[in-house]
């Protein structure tokens, strides 16, 4: 029994943190994949623009899936590499959707996802910088 006045970390904090983040990435992946389910998306894309949109959605889905797998297997450095790509794909998606549809809920949803991913990316970058600092201090 600890004598701390406050519990500094709730039980299973790291597990819940990782699991929740992996679920969020999986949700993002499935959301991106569902964007490809439009009439004729795979079979007969009408134009180059259609193909580009579908490719973007598939790429976003695949990158979010890689991020989810990296998160589950505790590979934060791989997550750190995939997140800029995910941010870029989401930004491109938001721009395309905003250009085609105007300010619809879809655009805000993508922007919200992008902000979530950006926040996580910044946390990982800070972690990386702190790891370097700790290593430098330890090595003297």
């Amino acid at each position, binding site marked *: 029994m600890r004598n701390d006045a406050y519990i500094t970390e709730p039980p299973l904090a790291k597990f819940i943190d990782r699991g929740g983040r992996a679920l969020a990435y999986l949700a993002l992946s499935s959301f991106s994949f569902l964007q490809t389910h439009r009439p004729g998306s795979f079979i007969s894309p009408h134009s180059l623009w259609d193909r580009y949109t579908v490719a973007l959605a598939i790429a976003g889905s695949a990158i979010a899936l890689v991020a989810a797998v990296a998160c589950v297997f505790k590979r934060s450095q791989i997550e*750190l*590499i995939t997140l800029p*790509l995910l941010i870029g794909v989401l930004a*491109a*998606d938001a721009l395309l959707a905003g250009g085609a549809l105007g300010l619809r809920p879809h655009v805000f949803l993508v922007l919200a996802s992008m902000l979530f991913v950006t926040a996580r990316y910044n946390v990982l970058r800070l972690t990386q910088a*702190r790891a370097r*600092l700790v290593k430098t201090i330890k090595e003297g």
Partner: protein
Amino acid sequence: MEQWLATAGSIMALVVAAVTAYSQWAKVRVDRRHGIGEHEMSMSRFGLESLQASLAAKDALISQYRERIDELDEELDAIRAERNHLLEEVERLKDLVLSMQKRLDDLERKA
């Protein structure tokens, strides 16, 4: 027109993302070469462990520097003692030379 602008903007976003991801990949490679892996990342993630590690490293460094300062102080004391001894020796030799000179002068005078 709007659609073309949006497409061009999205392509630019993708290019910037690719460049950023490449730079991150390069950074991670350099980090791994310097021994910063997943373990170090997870150690530094939750503040307490990293703080404890930094404090331990700081204490170790301070104790090392204190030991070195003590060693240098001892060396300095030894050098000072040797210098004082040498100065005393020089004074003694000067006195000896003077007394011998005096004695020589006396002998020459007698002769």
